[in-house]
């Protein structure tokens, strides 16, 4: 297993949540980088292609769905799986993200254990 080298990017506007996920993932041996919103993320992704992205849906400036669409539209990074993480638990919102190419959709409140398992599962694909 080369799990130690897996890179994960978190895009989430709540710093507390970001820090918690980071704490958990670093403990599990991932390298984690975080952004407060979707701005400048694309440039970073092209420069430093990570293995997985976790993104909030509702964020200032560039929201999760727009970001997701931009990622999927860019052939250089469209292969990176994106897991959406949002308070928005309505079916229509979830479907919209999954249709736009999200690998998975987790609703808040969430459990970090569940998040970790879904990350592992997504990375295995």
């Amino acid at each position, binding site marked *: 297993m080369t799990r130690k080298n897996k890179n994960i990017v978190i895009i989430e506007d709540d710093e507390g949540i970001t820090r918690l996920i980071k704490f958990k993932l670093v403990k599990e041996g991932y390298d984690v980088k975080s952004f407060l919103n979707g701005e400048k993320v694309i440039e970073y992704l092209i420069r430093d292609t990570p293995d997985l992205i976790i993104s909030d849906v*509702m964020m200032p400036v560039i929201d999760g769905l*727009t970001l997701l669409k931009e990622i999927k539209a860019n052939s250089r990074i469209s292969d990176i799986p994106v897991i959406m993480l949002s308070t928005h638990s309505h079916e*229509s919102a979830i479907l*919209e993200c999954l249709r736009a190419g999200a690998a998975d959709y987790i609703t808040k409140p969430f459990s970090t254990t569940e998040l970790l398992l879904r990350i592992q599962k997504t990375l295995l694909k």
Partner: protein
Amino acid sequence: MIDIIRSIVQYFNYFILLYFLAIGSIYILLSFLSFYNLKRYLNNQAFKDLKDVFKLKKYKSISLIVPAYNEEAGIYTSILALLQLEYPEYKIIVVNDGSKDQTLNILKEKFDAVAVPYLPFDHIPTEKVNAVYICKNHKNLVIVDKQNGGKADAINVGINISDGDLIIVVDADSIIERDSLLKMSYPFVENENVIAVGGTVRIANGCQINKGYVTSVDLPKSWLAKFQVVEYIRAFMFGRNGFQIMDGILIISGAFSCFKRSELIKVNGFLKDCIGEDMEIIVRMHRLLRKENPKALISFIPDPVCWTEAPESTKILSRQRKRWQKGTIVSLMLHKQLLFNPRYRLLGMIVFPYFVFFEMFGPVIEAIGYIIFFISLIFGMVSLNFALVLLSAAILYGVVLSLLSVILEELTFRKYPRTLYLIELFVIAVLENFGYRQLTLWYRFIGSLEYFFGDRKWGHMEKKGFSS
């Protein structure tokens, strides 16, 4: 004869002095009420989880109506930003009011619009609708093209087409905070008697704006805009918050306002060809709906939810203020039954009379006061000392109020992050009373004259459009 004139002038000057004392005292009273209201609001908000709405099946559906007339400069950015607001589900209805520029084409092109047959809802009679478009990539965006008929008419078309429980009317150049729909819909969720809600508007000039969001709050460079920053803080902190306690919200800013759709239809929508249709609708809703349901409530949330562009030239400012003054007069005159009408309780007995005496006639009284005052000064009818007392009393009140509002701002929302700005706001709050206030007073005076002696037409505000 001279003696009689002299004593009339003398008495008039005393009257003006009294007027200033009265208005000052009212404001001081309002400031206490506002303080109470703000505290109550913030305590109420402290342990509320606004995002709970995302977990519930039941929430109020919202239709945002964006009337657009010659908005090609900023419409694309504005709509993009509006598409990213935080709310479970909402619809945006852009109504192109027969623009003469590329507004419609930009919308059609950028959002991949497809024309669909128009369902002829006619809850409110309006100008003809040319076409309705829906957008493949933005399922909650509807574009309507109609014959020019003015802002009120454009909004009415939006009301006819919309299907939300709540209607939010947004100016195309307003910048909306992302959680504003959550905040604005809350009063409706908590009380079915709420028929309309307004929020606090702030000045966007000088702020850093990125993709239709305010990313950093700064003060504008232009002095005219700086004065308006303090003026807006004062108007919203004191006026609205204070009147809220008395159930007497008579003005909701047209830049961003929220209504119950069913009630809007009941009062037949916005009044076409009316100057200041945003104020008129509120007064009319008070008059008609409180007759029907005495508990009907027009509410206000003190949160800054909307940022708007303030005019930076005296030419446009004068046009804007004249228009506002005319709008105030029209709205008050159309619904004068409210005056001292005990059925409307505090609104009829205190707030409405206040608006009539101090907002409608205020500029006239004050302006005439200034004129007579200087005349009598020149002719030596009053002593220089009396003059100075009068002036310093007026200015003193003004300064104290402006300063108080800056304090309230700092106590509550703290939108201005840098301490240097705070000091600057303070200086502006003092300086505002030497010139700027008199200037706006003058514009309002002219507006009143124009209303009573003829020219009642709209002034169009020139738009710069925000950079994207």
